[in-house]
C-alpha cells in the first residue's frame, strides 16, 4: 500500500476528510453498487443535540410536548450513567437527505455513517415503494415547520393546557392514525396553510350568533330519521380503521384548530408508517451497503488497516444476534437478520447450491447480486421480503425455530425447527412476526351516532385470545371520549366466534 491514496489517517476527523470520504464513498455507491440517492446533506452535531433529536422522535424540527421532555430526560440519564451509548447516526427521509454525525465520532465512524445512512438508508428511502407511496421526501421539512409553527400558535392563542390535552389524546391514538391505503396526493403545505387561514377568516367574518337559535331541520323531519341515519353512517364510511382521522373529521364538539392538530399528528403517524414496516429491510440494506463500501475502500487502499479493524469491530457489534437463551437476548436483531439476508441473497445470486436453485429459481445463479438486491429493496416490505427471500440455508445458519406460547401452559411448544419439514413453517412464522397488522390490536370505529345519544362504538377484533390491557385501554378510551365529547364504548369481539369478550364504556369528562 502506498498510503498516498488514503482518504484520512488516524482517528481525528475534519471537514476536509469528511468531503474526501463522501466523494470516495459516493463513487463506489453510485458507480459500483448502482445506488440511486437523494442529494446528501451531512450535519455535524453534538451529543446533546443528538439527545435532542432522539427525544423529538428523530425529527429535526418538532413541536413542543411534555412527552419529548420526558424522553429527553430518560435518554440523558441513561447516557450519563453510561448505560446506553448514543447511536452514531440519525437520518431523515427527506430531500435532500439529512444525516447527522456526531462530533465525538472518530473518522472511521464518520465514514461508516456516511456509507450507512447517507447512501444505504438514503437509497432505501428513495426507492422503496412504501416510502414512495406514503411519504413526500421533498415536503417533510416543510410539514414539520408548519406543524411546529401551528402548534405554538395555538398555544399562544388557546393556552398550553388546552393544546397539551389535545396532543396527549392524539399521541395515545397515534397507532390508529394510519390509513392503510395509499394516500391521496394532498395539496402542498403552503396551500394548506392558506386554505386553513382563509377558512378561519371566512368563519370569523360570517359568524352570526343568531343562527344558533334556528331550529335544526333534521330533527323536525321525524319521518325520514332512519334514512337520515343511514345516510350519515354511509357518509362516515364505517367501519373506519383510522380512528384519529375519524375523530378529526367527525367529532362533533371539536374546534377547527383542534381538528388541525389531530390531522398534524395523524400525518406524522402516516409518515412513520413505512418505517415501521420496513425496519429490518432498511437496516439490512444500510448495513449491507456500508459493509460493501468499507471493504471496497480498504481493498482500494483508501483506508488504513487500523481503520478497517475499528470498522469491523463496530460492524460485528451491530450485527450480533444473541441466542434466545442468552441474557442479552431481546428479540430478533433487525440489523443481524437484515444483513444476513442481504448477504445470503448475494450468495444465492453468485454461488447457489442445488437447494437454492430449487427454492429460488427466479434469481439463483443469475450473477446479478446488486441488481437483485436493489429490486428487493424497492419492491418489498419486511413481511413479504422474508416470505420471498429467507432461505433454508440461513434458517439453518441462524438455528431459527418456531415456538407456540399458549397462556396458561407452563411451557413453550417447539412447533418447527430448521429441518426439511420446518423451513416453510419457520419462514411463514417469521414473516408474520414482521407483519404489524398481526401484532397490534385490530381496532376500528364501527358505530357513530351523530344525531341521537351520540355514542361512539369501537370494536376490537380479538385474535388468539389476546385481550387489551385493561388499564391502558381505559385511559386511552378516556382520551377518545374527551375528543369525541360523548360516551364511548369499546367492545372486544372474538374474531372467530363473534362472541363478545369485554365491554368498556367511558364517559367524556364534563
Amino acid at each position, binding site marked *: 500500500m502506498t498510503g498516498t491514496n488514503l482518504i484520512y489517517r488516524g482517528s481525528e476527523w475534519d471537514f476536509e476528510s469528511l468531503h474526501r470520504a463522501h466523494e470516495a464513498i459516493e463513487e463506489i455507491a453510485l458507480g459500483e453498487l448502482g445506488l440511486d440517492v437523494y442529494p446528501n446533506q451531512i450535519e455535524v452535531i453534538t451529543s446533546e443535540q443528538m439527545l435532542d433529536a432522539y427525544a423529538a422522535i428523530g425529527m429535526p424540527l418538532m413541536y413542543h410536548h411534555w412527552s419529548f421532555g420526558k424522553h429527553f430526560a430518560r435518554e440523558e440519564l441513561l447516557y450519563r450513567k453510561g448505560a446506553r451509548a448514543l447511536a452514531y447516526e440519525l437520518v431523515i427521509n427527506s430531500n435532500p437527505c439529512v444525516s447527522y454525525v456526531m462530533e465525538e465520532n472518530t473518522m472511521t465512524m464518520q465514514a461508516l455513517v456516511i456509507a450507512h445512512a447517507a447512501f444505504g438508508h438514503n437509497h432505501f428511502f428513495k426507492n422503496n415503494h412504501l416510502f414512495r407511496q406514503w411519504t413526500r421526501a421533498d415536503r417533510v421539512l416543510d410539514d414539520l415547520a408548519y406543524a411546529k409553527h401551528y402548534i405554538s400558535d395555538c398555544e399562544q392563542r388557546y393556552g398550553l393546557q388546552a393544546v397539551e390535552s389535545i396532543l396527549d389524546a392524539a399521541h395515545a391514538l397515534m397507532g390508529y392514525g394510519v390509513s392503510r391505503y395509499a394516500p391521496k396526493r394532498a395539496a402542498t403545505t403552503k396551500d394548506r396553510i392558506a386554505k386553513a387561514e382563509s377558512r378561519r377568516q371566512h368563519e370569523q367574518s360570517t359568524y352570526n350568533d343568531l343562527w344558533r337559535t334556528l331550529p335544526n331541520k333534521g330533527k323536525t323531519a321525524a319521518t325520514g330519521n332512519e334514512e337520515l341515519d343511514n345516510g350519515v353512517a354511509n357518509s362516515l364510511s364505517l367501519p373506519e380503521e383510522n380512528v384519529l382521522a375519524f375523530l378529526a373529521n367527525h367529532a362533533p364538539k371539536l374546534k377547527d384548530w383542534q381538528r388541525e392538530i389531530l390531522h398534524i399528528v395523524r400525518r406524522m403517524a402516516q409518515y412513520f408508517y413505512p418505517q415501521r414496516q420496513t425496519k429490518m429491510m432498511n437496516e439490512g440494506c444500510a448495513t449491507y451497503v456500508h459493509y460493501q463500501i468499507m471493504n471496497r475502500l480498504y481493498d482500494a487502499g483508501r483506508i488504513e488497516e487500523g481503520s478497517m479493524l475499528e470498522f469491523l469491530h463496530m460492524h460485528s457489534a451491530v450485527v450480533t444476534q444473541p441466542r434466545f437463551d442468552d441474557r442479552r437476548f431481546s428479540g430478533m436483531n433487525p440489523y443481524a437478520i437484515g444483513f444476513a439476508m442481504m448477504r445470503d441473497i448475494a450468495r444465492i445470486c453468485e454461488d447457489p447450491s442445488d437447494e437454492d436453485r430449487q427454492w429460488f429459481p427466479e434469481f439463483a445463479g443469475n450473477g446479478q447480486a446488486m441488481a437483485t438486491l436493489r429490486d428487493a429493496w424497492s419492491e418489498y416490505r419486511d413481511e413479504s421480503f422474508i416470505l420471498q427471500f429467507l432461505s433454508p440455508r440461513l434458517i439453518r445458519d441462524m438455528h431459527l425455530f418456531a415456538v407456540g*406460547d399458549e397462556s396458561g401452559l407452563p411451557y413453550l411448544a417447539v412447533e418447527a425447527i430448521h429441518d426439511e419439514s420446518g423451513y416453510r413453517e419457520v419462514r411463514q412464522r417469521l414473516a408474520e412476526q414482521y407483519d404489524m397488522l398481526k401484532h397490534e390490536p385490530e381496532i376500528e370505529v364501527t358505530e357513530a351516532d351523530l344525531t341521537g345519544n351520540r355514542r361512539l362504538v369501537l370494536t376490537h377484533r380479538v385474535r388468539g385470545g389476546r385481550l387489551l390491557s385493561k388499564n391502558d385501554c381505559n385511559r386511552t378510551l378516556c382520551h377518545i371520549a374527551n375528543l369525541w365529547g360523548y360516551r364511548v364504548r369499546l367492545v372486544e369481539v372474538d374474531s372467530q366466534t363473534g362472541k363478545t369478550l369485554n365491554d368498556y364504556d367511558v364517559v367524556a369528562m364534563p
Partner: protein
Amino acid sequence: MHVIDRRQNPNAKSLGNRQRFVRRVKSHIRKAVKEAIRHRKVADLEGSEKISINANDVSEPNFNFESGVGNRNYVLPGNRGYQRGDRIRKPSGGAGGSGASGSPDGDGEDMFVFLLTREEFMDMFFDDLELPNLAKRKLKSMTTTSRVRAGYSVDGAPQRLNLRETMRHSLSRRIALRRPKTSELDALLAELEQAKEQDDEEEIKRLTELVAVTQRRMKRVSYLDTVDLRYNRFETRSKPTTQAVMFCLMDTSASMTEDLKDLAKRFYMLLHLFLTRYYQAVEIVFIRHTYTATEVDEHTFFYGRETGGTVVSSALIEMERIVKERYPVEDWNIYAAQASDGHNFDHDMPQTMSLLEKSILPMCQYYAYIEVGDEPLTSDSVLWKNYESLVARISHFQRAKVSEPADIYPVFHKLFSSDKRQQSQTAAG
C-alpha cells in the same frame, strides 16, 4: 453534498419540552423534593437533584395487549438441539410473572428518574413559601422611584450626549452622502501647486475649479449635523418599597450542644437560602449570644464555635441597638428568627419578656422562635413557657419546636407558608 456544522446551534432545543414536562409532573416532583430534604444536609441542597417519580404518573397510554394473555407464536434464533414437539419451560412459572423477566418490547420501568437542575430544585423547594407581611402597613402605598436607561432620544441636555451613537449616525450619513476625503482635497491642492509651478494655465484653471467644487461639497456635508445627535434617555420607574432586614438570633451557650447548634444552623441555612433566593433587597443580620451578644458575619455565624452562659436579653438589646443605628423602623420591614434550646437565666426572664413585648415585637413584622431540643416530650422550657402568653396575644409571633433534622423543613414551611399568612390576614380582617 453539503456538510453543515450545527454544533453552534442553540443547545437547549428541548428546553420547552422540559418545562412542559416539569409543569406536568410538578406535584410529584414537589413531593419527591420534600422527601429528598429529609435525608440531606441543607448544605447539600445546592446541587442538582435526582428525583424519582412513579412511572405510572408519566406513562402515555395506548391500546396494547395484556401481557401474558392469549396465544402467541414466535421465531427464536439459536436452537441448541430442540426437536419439533419438544417443550421448553417458561422462565418464571406461568403467565403474568413478576415482570422481572421483562416483556420483549417494554423497558421494564417502575420508577422514572429525573434530574432536576439546581434552579428547578430550589423553585420546587421554596414553592409557596413567602416572607410574611412583607409590605409595611405604613409604607404600603409608598413607592420609591429609580432611573433606568431607556435607549436614546434625539434631544436632551448636552451632558447626556452619547458620543458613540452620535458619531455612528454622523459617519453613516457622511458615507451615504459621499463626503470627499480631506486627503482628496490635499491631493488636488498638491496637484494645483505643481501646475502652478509648471505654469500650466489650463490645468490650473481646471484644478482650481475642482478644488472649489470639492471645498463646496465638503462644506455642504457637515461633519456633525443636528440630525446626528443622540442623547441618553432615562426613565424613572417607580418600585414598591421592599426594604427588609432579617435578624437571625442564635443561642450558643454551653447548654446548646453541638447537635442542637447544628439543628439551629440548619434552620438558618434554609432561611438564608430562602431569603437570598427570593429577596434581593433583604439584608440579613447575624447575632449570636451567650451571656453577651455580638453581631457576626455569615461565616462565623454558621461555622464559628463559642460557649458560655445564656442571657437571651443580650441578643435582644443588641438587635435593638442595630435597628436604631442602621434600620430605622419607619423605613424597614424587620423580621427576626430566634433559635435556642429554651434555656435562660431566671433572673433574665423578666427583662427578656419586657424587651420583647415593649420594643422588639412592636417593631417587627414577624418574629419566629425555633426551639431545638433532644426530647420534645419533657416539660416545657423556660422560654417556651414564658412565650406562651405572647403567642395568644400577638399574631405575628410564632414558635415551633425542632427535635431532629427531618423536622426542619416542615417547621420552616409552617412558619413561612404563604397559606398561613393569608389565613391570618383573613382572620384579622
